[in-house]
């Protein structure tokens, strides 16, 4: 067997193994798959944000050509199909559990948002199913809608759910209010900001799709679905919705074209096609079109917040007080309750030594698409608030914004650092990432660039954010105590084949992240197997023992750690086999770069020789050791990981049109040990693109009647290549102290760090207009209005 070159191990920018099939059109996405005898589902969706269903007449639809069946919510409920479960229970300030109204797979008595599924037609072709869906007559009694959170919380507001009075899901808090109030009482300055974290629509490149199949011969069900976590879907759908035991249900998430969180959740369509396949004994496929994705994929963000920062006369932060309204949409999506609580408020210390923090969050039901985790999930909201507030505090104290941050940084000697909001940071060096970013961005030379831009008639600004996030989720016992209804460990199996090639089975799921390469590099580095001989299998409950999937930048920190544990077991067993073959004691066997060697001698066996012995155990310690060379490990993390860093954005504003262009972007991130620098760079750049999208472009807009105005890419502004600057990516590494790889996670840092850096730059560009804050997205008209409104006053001054 070839010994791996150092260029394939940890730290090598190996080209992505999966790209050959992706770039040559050979990927196998759910919609690429077709099963024998397959029928097609079309979901009829509500055109109303809020309406009572007085009746559904499916007669005409059922008689249309090619139609196999029409099902309504009543049909599914009568067949015993359950509602979609929520995976996280948050408790109110008084200790009572949150309101958790039912979420039927197909609407029963009411529809609660535009796009709410009402009925499904299954037909021989997709067009026939769609034609028939148009023939379904739904008798709606249109009800007044609560479109935004202020409306939903107002007295006399339309009520979405019987079990959620006042449309309140929960009223939660964290921190010691009395201590925080006392800090404010002795503050020298208070910086206060009201802000909106704009609602986003994820728009993965591949729309969601699902195929259900039922085998009458065995009673087995199979679901192919566009999911980030097939085992979780099997668990939720099997146990709560369709009541199919795990042993009878296989969930496969094949190649998946982007998720960004929106494909974590268990969606109605997955249950519908699986159940319909059983009823009809035909495979049933559903594929969303883009318009459907806009009104059926979970949205992200959507906070309205008031935040106050108390500072002493030296600019040291004394306390932080935050009050947030978080939009849940019409129903609780799978992980929705934990996003604005345990993934948001717990991050409010940021990278600062804030001694006292209090945050209260009201989660609100509205007649809009459900909201759940979207790249960053809670942490972008916390970071935007905090990093905007730091700039406002700098303005109000007159302390330079960099200096103010430095004065409040947690020092690199202070780790482990316990924040007042539950988290304990293990490592980091915030001064170092700041220094490196300022240098790379030529912060010192900015005023010359501002002056040069001014001569061209442009307003140039520069902004910084020093962020932290928590990922590598999560210690199961900790999240369990916080309301999670699942463990958050990960599972890895290492199967060394008889001739020494390796199959990795992982519960993590790759939908663009490059796991097939990164994970192979881990094996190459530790077992010395060339990555060409390492196969990474994921996304199939029929192959992978178990797993919790990919989200929250957890795959490497948790999934990779599970693989390391499994490889440790492989090495331990291999040493025993080697000791037998080399007639040495186990303690004397060393393993390095694919070879088991008797210490201090040239006696050695390669991994391939050991594995062959394990599978052909003719000369083998069979009395004490089982044959074979395959090990599985479950890794439950000891703590979250805490990537952090500094992002610098530089913008130019055309004052005549208000158009903002990001002209330069610098990211210096501490993501822990870097396995593949090229993949990390791509992940950061992708995240930054989405962060710039949130800051300048993307706005989910409902009209006052609850219709989605930004319901297509004609109106929802996705960032495009020409909206984006060159993004300089660098890393500064401090190792995670509690996982075996020292890794932290890189998938979300861009989306977390970028928005405040960009808006801080916009505010800086507009500083002569007396602007304290600009809401996202900072669209041309929004900027023009600021300039237009402030110009006369300036002229008068």
């Amino acid at each position, binding site marked *: 067997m070839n010994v791996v070159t150092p260029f394939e191990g940890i730290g090598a920018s190996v080209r992505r193994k999966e790209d050959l099939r992706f770039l040559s059109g050979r990927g196998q996405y759910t919609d690429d798959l077709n099963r024998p005898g397959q029928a097609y589902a079309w979901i009829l969706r509500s055109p109303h944000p809020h309406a009572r269903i007085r009746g559904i007449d499916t007669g005409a639809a059922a008689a249309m050509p090619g139609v196999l069946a029409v099902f309504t919510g009543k049909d599914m409920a009568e067949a015993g199909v359950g509602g979609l479960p929520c995976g996280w229970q948050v408790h109110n300030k008084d200790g009572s559990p949150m309101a958790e109204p039912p979420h039927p797979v197909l609407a029963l008595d009411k529809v609660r948002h535009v796009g709410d599924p009402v009925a499904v037609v299954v037909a021989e072709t997709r067009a026939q199913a769609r034609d028939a869906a148009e023939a379904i007559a739904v008798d709606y009694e249109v009800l007044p809608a609560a479109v935004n959170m202020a409306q939903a919380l107002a007295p006399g507001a339309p009520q979405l759910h019987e079990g959620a009075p006042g449309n309140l899901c929960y009223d939660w808090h964290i921190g010691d209010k009395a201590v925080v109030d006392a800090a404010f009482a002795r503050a020298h300055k208070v910086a206060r900001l009201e802000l909106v974290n704009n609602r986003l629509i994820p728009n993965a490149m591949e729309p969601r799709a699902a195929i259900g199949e039922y085998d009458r011969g065995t009673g087995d069900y199979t679901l192919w679905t566009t999911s980030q976590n097939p085992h979780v879907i099997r668990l939720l759908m099997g146990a709560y919705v369709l009541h199919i035991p795990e042993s009878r249900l296989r969930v496969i998430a094949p190649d998946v074209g982007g998720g960004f969180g929106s494909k974590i959740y268990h969606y109605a369509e997955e249950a519908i096609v699986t159940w319909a396949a059983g009823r009809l004994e035909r495979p049933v496929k559903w594929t969303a079109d883009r318009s459907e994705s806009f009104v059926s994929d979970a949205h992200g963000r959507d906070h309205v917040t008031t935040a106050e920062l108390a500072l002493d006369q030296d600019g040291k932060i004394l306390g932080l007080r935050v009050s947030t309204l978080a939009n849940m949409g019409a129903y609780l999506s799978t992980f929705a309750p934990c996003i604005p609580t345990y993934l948001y408020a717990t991050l409010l210390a940021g990278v600062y030594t804030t001694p006292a923090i209090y945050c209260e969050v009201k989660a609100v039901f509205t007649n809009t698409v459900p909201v759940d985790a979207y790249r960053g999930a809670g942490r972008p909201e916390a970071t935007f608030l905090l990093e905007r507030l730091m700039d406002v505090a700098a303005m109000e104290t007159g302390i330079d914004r960099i200096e103010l941050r430095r004065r409040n940084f947690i020092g690199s000697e202070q780790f482990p650092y316990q924040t007042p909001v539950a988290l304990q940071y293990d490592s980091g060096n915030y001064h170092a990432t700041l220094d490196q970013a300022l240098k790379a961005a030529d912060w010192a030379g900015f005023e010359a660039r501002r002056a040069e831009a001014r001569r061209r008639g442009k307003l140039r600004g520069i902004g910084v954010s020093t962020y932290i996030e928590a990922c590598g989720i999560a210690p199961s016992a900790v999240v369990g105590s916080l309301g999670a209804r699942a463990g958050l460990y990960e599972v890895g199996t290492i199967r060394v084949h008889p001739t020494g090639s390796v199959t990795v089975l992982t519960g993590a799921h790759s939908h663009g992240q490059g796991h097939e390469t990164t994970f192979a590099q881990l094996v190459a580095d530790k077992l010395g197997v060339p990555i060409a001989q390492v196969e990474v299998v994921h996304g199939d409950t029929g192959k992978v023992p178990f797993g919790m999937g990919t989200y929250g930048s957890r795959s490497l920190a948790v999934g990779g750690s599970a693989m390391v544990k499994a490889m440790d077991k492989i090495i331990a067993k291999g040493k025993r086999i080697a000791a037998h073959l080399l007639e040495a004691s186990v303690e004397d066997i060393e393993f390095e770069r694919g070879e088991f060697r008797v210490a201090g001698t040239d006696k050695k066996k390669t991994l391939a020789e050991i594995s062959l012995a394990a599978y052909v155990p003719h000369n083998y310690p069979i009395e004490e050791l089982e044959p074979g060379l395959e090990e599985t490990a479950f890794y439950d993390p000891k703590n979250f990981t805490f990537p952090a860093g500094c992002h610098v954005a530089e913008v130019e504003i055309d004052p005549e049109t208000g*158009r903002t262009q990001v002209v330069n972007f610098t990211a210096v991130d501490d993501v822990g040990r870097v396995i593949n620098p090229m993949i990390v760079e791509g992940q950061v750049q992708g995240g930054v693109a989405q962060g710039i999208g949130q800051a300048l472009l993307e706005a989910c807009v409902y009209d006052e009647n609850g219709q989605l105005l930004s319901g297509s890419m*004609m109106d929802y502004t996705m960032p495009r290549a020409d909206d984006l600057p060159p993004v300089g990516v660098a890393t500064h590494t401090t190792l995670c102290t509690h996982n075996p790889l020292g890794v932290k996670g890189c998938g979300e840092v861009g989306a977390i760090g970028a928005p405040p850096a960009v808006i801080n730059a916009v505010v800086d560009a507009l500083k002569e207009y007396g602007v304290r804050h600009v809401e996202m997205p900072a669209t041309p008209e929004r900027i023009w209005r600021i300039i237009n409104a402030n110009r006369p006053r300036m002229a008068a001054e």
Partner: protein
Amino acid sequence: MYEFAYHKPSSVADAVKLLSADPEARPIAGGHTLLPALKHRLARPTALVDLSGIAELRGIRREGDKVVIGALARHAEVANSDAVKGAIPALARLAGTIGDVQVRNRGTLGGSVANNDPAADYPAAVLGLGATVVTDRRRIAADDFFTGMFSTALEPGELLVAIEFPIPEKAGYAKMKNPASRYVMTGAFVSRGPQGVRVAINGAGPCVFRQREMEAALAANWSPDAVANIRQSPDGLNSDIHGSAEYRAHLVTVMAKRAVADAG
């Protein structure tokens, strides 16, 4: 989309016959408006009459003091045409900024002008140059052609065959794009030439229109400064989530100024 019949005539006469015989039939050229409408089931024509096989609708040529462009000329062809670049460079530049590469290689001049989307580019050039629209049966002056939002002087069954652009002394174009769709939020096409001084505004209103006050100012003083202080009234302008009528009114002045600068 729903089912429809498909015809591919090889002459204008045959196309007009098909369209006249069936009022629910629709001609299709590049399909950039019609195909999305079909896919969204917003349009339900009985038949599509595919114009792509009609040779007489093609071609770009200079004829004396005008440039004649066939209805089927693709945006990329106009952008890259030596005849257009030599005679009316602003028109070539305009064509080169429509949509993206894929759009420019499919979309056609005739389709865009006949559709008269308020956010389309070409109507500004047609009106801003005082062009003449040639159909299978008559010639229509630009001033009479654009009658309202998605509405033109074309009669049912009447087919746009070519557009004759008089060659101006100077012409320029500037636009602010809708950040999402990249269609025109507000644009201005200005020219000075045989048709006098013209300022055509697209994107801002329900239909492309001439800004007469700016025309008068430019006739007296052809310079960006001449229009810099002329305010467009927001009354009757379009308003959407990307730009209010007030913002568009403001952009009319900015884009007109930039269009004059572009014209030189």
